[in-house]
């Protein structure tokens, strides 16, 4: 089977996974808690008002019909073409389209996620390789401790400490928001400020938005790098003990060829898989990071909606997170097949 056939198969296989995921969100968000409208009003509202709201949101229908509405809205291509975002229902608080709100908040989260992932993987893989090469030495113990300790730090605590040092005391970096409110954001093309400002050719805006990104992405990146360090280290250690590495040494190959061409090249495959799974964890951390840094992304959106008990909005955001994770795992699987000749039989 060639790589192309594999990609097609993998994309086809994504559909049932996605359906399962959406159904699970529906069960958790809609079936388990009971009646969202009375939850929203904490049972204190006028029953008639609550009834009309149920009707408006279609919550008076039987569950299976609500399920069909829910899935149907997501696959409604016509709606998507017209609005530029899928139909995720209307907010219980503002009665606006949840899809629109989510799509405008999403790029902020995406930008934060991309930069954090870059920091985490570069830092993590570098330190992990270094530790494995100096197994059981002082350096190895130090790096291992770094990996273990970062895992145990709540992401928002690190965020607050960094804010305290670089924002409050040193005043080097902004402690919140994507861009100084006095600066006009760049015209939306991708929604990522660093990319859009470059597309606009505005270096000043690029550096300003990059400056705002430093603390949040560093916070999230450092926390996540711990897992990458531990993962890279352990996979490198295991791979360095394999027969083909010893055989390569016995052939007198250079140590750099052995470290990178033999050990890391093979250890990278399980690391890649974990990278995909860690993306999910990164998104969870993003919620807390966004709250810490007043970052106007999907995470802060969800947290704000929680205080209003805006169930449709929360459900929409959860669906969005789910879609994102599914796409990431699809990409990771395809990359895996690309890097591992054994997959393509």
């Amino acid at each position, binding site marked *: 089977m060639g790589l192309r056939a594999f990609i097609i198969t993998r994309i086809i296989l994504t559909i049932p996974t996605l359906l399962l995921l959406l159904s699970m969100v529906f069960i958790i968000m809609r079936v388990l808690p009971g009646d969202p409208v009375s939850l929203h009003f904490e049972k204190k509202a006028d029953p008639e008002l609550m009834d009309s709201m149920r009707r408006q949101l279609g919550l008076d229908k039987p569950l299976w019909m609500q399920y069909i509405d829910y899935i149907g809205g997501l696959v409604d291509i016509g709606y998507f073409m017209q609005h530029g975002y899928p139909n995720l229902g209307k907010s219980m608080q503002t009665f606006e389209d949840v899809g629109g709100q989510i799509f405008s908040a999403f790029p902020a989260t995406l930008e934060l996620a991309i930069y954090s992932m870059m920091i985490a993987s570069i830092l993590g893989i570098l330190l992990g390789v270094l530790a494995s090469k100096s197994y059981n030495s002082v350096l190895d113990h130090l790096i291992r401790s770094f990996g273990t300790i970062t895992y145990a730090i709540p992401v928002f605590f690190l965020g607050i400490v960094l804010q305290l040092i670089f924002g409050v005391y040193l005043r080097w970096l902004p402690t919140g928001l994507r861009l100084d409110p006095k600066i006009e954001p760049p015209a939306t093309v991708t929604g990522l400020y660093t990319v859009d400002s470059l597309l606009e050719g505005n270096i000043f805006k690029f550096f300003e938005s990059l400056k705002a990104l430093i603390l949040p992405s560093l916070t999230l990146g450092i926390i996540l790098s711990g897992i990458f360090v531990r993962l890279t280290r352990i996979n490198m250690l295991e791979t360095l003990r394999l*027969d083909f590495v010893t*055989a390569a040494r*016995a*052939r*007198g*190959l250079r140590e750099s060829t052995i470290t990178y061409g033999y050990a890391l090249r*093979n250890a990278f495959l399980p690391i890649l898989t974990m990278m995909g799974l860690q993306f999910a964890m990164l998104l969870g951390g993003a919620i807390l990071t966004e709250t810490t840094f007043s970052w106007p992304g999907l995470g802060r959106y969800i947290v704000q909606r929680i205080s209003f008990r805006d169930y449709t909005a929360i459900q929409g955001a959860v669906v969005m997170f789910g879609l994102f994770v599914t796409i990431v795992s699809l990409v990771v699987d395809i990359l895996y097949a690309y890097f591992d000749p054994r997959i393509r039989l």
Partner: protein
Amino acid sequence: MPLLEVNSLRVDYPTSRGTVHAVENVSFSLEKGKKLGIAGESGSGKSTLGLSLIRLVPHPGIIVGGCIKIDGTDIVKLSNHEIRAIRGKKVAYIFQDPMTSLNPVKRIGTHFVELIRTHEPTTTKEEAFKRTRSMLKNLGILPERINDYPHQFSGGMRQRIMIGLAIALNPALVIADEPTTALDVIVQAKILDLLEDLRKVYGMALILISHDLSILLERCDKIIVMYAGHMMEYANSTELYKNPKHPYTQGLLQSIPNIELEDQKLSAIPGSPPDMHNPPKGCRFWPRCSYATENCHLKEPPLIDVGNDHFVRCFLYGEKGAQQ
């Protein structure tokens, strides 16, 4: 000058349960183009001995004493850079399990080209590929398969490739550690035949390490019998077969079934191999030896020259050590 000269080699493994002396006081030499067998059961130190000859003893093992001279150079004293130039170029190694000895994400051709260009940086890529193709032909593999990955080959084929990688740079010595143990008997015979054919063509010396004394008797000029890190006996194959001196060698020969004999009576060596963290004092073999005397418990026997180029580490043949 012999090609390889090993003198009083000692290799230790420091572990949390104490130090294991995996190889102690091993001395032997090997002439150019000759075939030496190293026999031993699990824990005898035969693999550690083999790996120490290219200074690749696995972590946490270290060579703590003795010298290993290849063409007169003591490799124990070489820098990491210098020893790398010897590995693969002058001394090549073939490992037990062909299924795991090749890099799964690299093409077969790349393995060869990488090796050739590491040791002969002036060779062009085209030249290296050309040499690889002709080598594959010698190994009985279609040269078209140069771009295939290891997983596309069977175990026997992969061991052929490993042999090819070992002889690609025409080394003076090839060390093969249980090269056919993971393979079926027919493939095993064919691989060993191939190795012998190529060895003759290239005029290399060979060290064959195996737990199977039959293979060594069949294919080697001289044999070392290892037990619990010690060299127990060292002789010509024929001499060893007809005239085994050490009680351990005698026991071993009596426990190997021979398909050509009718109604063969096999016997075993009583007891079991020692715990290497806590080996017996004196001769390592005395708890299993029917000839053991008090002397054997107290002192370690020296290597005794019994004539006819035959050495044995046992008090049955005297008290005085030989000068090798």
